[in-house]
């Protein structure tokens, strides 16, 4: 299984809720991420979709080491990050780099592009001798399609799309195998978005990177991902190849989610079988018992409240889906 570059096992992150004036006692927890199992293979793109509050950002933060998991294990190239020594962990972490959502806030405005892209070398001085860093930074800039002569410019002198390229260059600096893209294009205008997506795909092809691509925009995920995991309230409710998820979703939430995406084709207006969910997402501090989606699910039965459905392949579902009644339901009828 050396093909698997990253794996999570029952990854959990709970944020304690405290109460008390002087002595704080824990009265509960926000279950931001509640037992996630994912595998990322070399060279593939794993899309993670879900709506705000589903825990996808917390998951991302755990993967890049910004957050310590409450429990569960993270394996990077087969090594359990919580069990290895500090040096090993550092090396492991180096292998996962992050591209953030907002190109305007993710670059330190007081640093030059060269400093930003070169910062990883300063933090990990063993990677590259000082003398070679500048050349490498310029190389990276060129790689992401920026003018290497702009190394001394400040981020504000670049447009949103270009800044996102700087962020990508920074992520590439340490030659990671895995890049975690946390909504990398959602802050960009449509016309720019396409440029960045094309760049990401090009880099993957050239450098053999593995992506975890977290996004709300289902269209973008479909475009770029090989496999897709759908999250709801801290759990993965369905996972499969891009085709399986988009063409044959079996979890009601996935179905609702997909049906809600507007299709830029007026001819389909009124022909789509849109599922409009009612109500809001329940609070992750107090998730519903059993299946977490049951409060908004049209298929919910008693069993859903009592028994939490496992993420597994079921009778009517060719791929893992965490629904007792997983079954395919045609969502989009393309009109020829």
């Amino acid at each position, binding site marked *: 299984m050396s093909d698997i570059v990253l794996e999570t096992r029952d990854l959990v992150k709970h944020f304690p809720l405290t109460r008390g004036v002087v002595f704080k006692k824990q009265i509960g927890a926000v279950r931001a991420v509640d037992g996630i199992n994912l595998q990322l293979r070399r060279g593939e793109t794993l899309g993670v979709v879900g*709506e*705000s509050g589903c825990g996808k950002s917390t998951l991302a933060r755990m993967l890049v080491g910004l957050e310590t998991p409450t429990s569960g294990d993270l394996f990077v190239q087969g090594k359990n990050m919580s069990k290895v020594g500090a040096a090993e962990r550092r090396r492991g972490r180096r292998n996962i780099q992050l591209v953030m959502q907002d190109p305007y806030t993710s670059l330190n405005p007081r640093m030059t592009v060269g400093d930003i892209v070169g910062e990883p070398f300063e933090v990990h001085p063993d990677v590259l001798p000082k003398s070679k860093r500048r050349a490498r930074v310029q190389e990276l800039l060129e790689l992401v399609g920026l003018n290497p002569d702009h190394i001394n410019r400040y981020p504000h002198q670049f*447009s949103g*799309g270009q800044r996102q390229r700087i962020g990508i260059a920074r992520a590439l600096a340490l030659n990671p195998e895995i890049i975690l893209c946390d909504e990398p294009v959602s802050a960009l*205008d*449509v*016309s*720019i*978005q*396409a*440029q960045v*997506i*094309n760049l990401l795909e090009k880099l993957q092809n050239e450098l053999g990177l593995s992506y975890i691509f977290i996004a*709300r925009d*289902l*269209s*973008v995920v*479909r*475009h*770029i991902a090989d496999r897709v995991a759908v999250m709801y309230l801290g759990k993965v409710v369905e996972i499969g190849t891009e085709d399986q998820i*988009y063409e044959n979703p079996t979890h009601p939430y996935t179905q*609702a*989610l*997909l*049906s*809600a*995406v*507007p*299709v*830029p*084709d*007026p*001819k*389909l*207006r009124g022909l789509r079988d*849109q599922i*409009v*969910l*009612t*109500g*809001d*997402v329940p609070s992750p501090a107090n998730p519903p018992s059993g299946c977490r989606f049951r409060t908004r699910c049209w298929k919910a039965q008693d069993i859903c409240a009592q028994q939490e459905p496992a993420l597994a392949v079921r009778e009517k579902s060719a791929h893992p889906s965490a629904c007792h009644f997983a079954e395919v339901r045609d969502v*989009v009828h*393309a009109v020829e």
Partner: protein
Amino acid sequence: MSTDVNVKLDALPGLDPNAMPLQVKDLHVEFRTRNGIAHAVNGVSFDLRPGETRAILGESGCGKSVTAQAIMGILDSPPGFITGGEILYRGVDLLKLPEAQRRKVRANRIAMIFQDALSALNPVFTVGFQLGELFRKHRGMSRKDGKARAVELLDLVKIPAAKQRVNDYPHQFSGGMRQRVMIAMALALDPEVLIADEPTTALDVTVQAQIMSLLAELQRERNMSLVLITHDMGVVADVADRISVMYAGRVIEEAPVDDIYASPAHPYTKGLLESIPRLDLKGQELSAIKGLPPALTNIPKGCAFNPRCRYAQDVCRQDPAPPLYQVSPVRTAACHFWKEVKGDV
């Protein structure tokens, strides 16, 4: 329906009940800033029929929100100034009305909902207060009646337990619920025209679906005209009747919704359509528009889109900007080469 509510308003000089609810003619807005004059809106025209949904489509900085604010008369001035054009409500030029009368048009006849409901609702007053205020100030209702109406409105926009929630503050609502409150506020006085400025951009897709279907339902019930300002081609395709595409403060293409998606006549529209990944069309390579939108302080000569345009010729780089060519009886496009663009598809 709505016209009988406010008697005073009918006294607007030159009000013609048969005229179109909203007509914008050659609107110009500029912002006078320290770094120069930003030409945010440069001759925008469109009209709106009763019950119709007009989408104004464009990317950030194209002047679409400024247009909306100019119509509402809530432009920050200074630095924003309307330097030309007309905004007609049923034949009455709102720009020429005295402020007191113009104020009556707001909320009563033309209402607006904003993108970010959290910042658009006053954080220090309850939702009930902010809704009831409309009835108290425009209809002279008592505090109690105003509140009762507020509860009705919250019910209307399907907020559960409206009676209790009317006393909550905006920050106690979820994003979707807040946007519902915004809608309730906009609909409170039965306006004829609703301007929705990116009403769902900040929301998740499932919530967006809820809001859009609610809006559609209410619009249908009330035969309201809707100006939908958005950058989301998907939403537009779903709800709009007619579309105005804006670029650098100009409408560069205007057409019924089907026509645009089927055969865009402006390279920019075309580029936009090609650059979105689509759920239903898999595996296509995205063709991005090269370059960046211009700064409004420094709009290129001639066609504003020319530096990014693959059809651009010398004529595009010279003033005047291309006029709106009549592409078909119902559509126009501001491109010298609209035929090529259209034929290309």
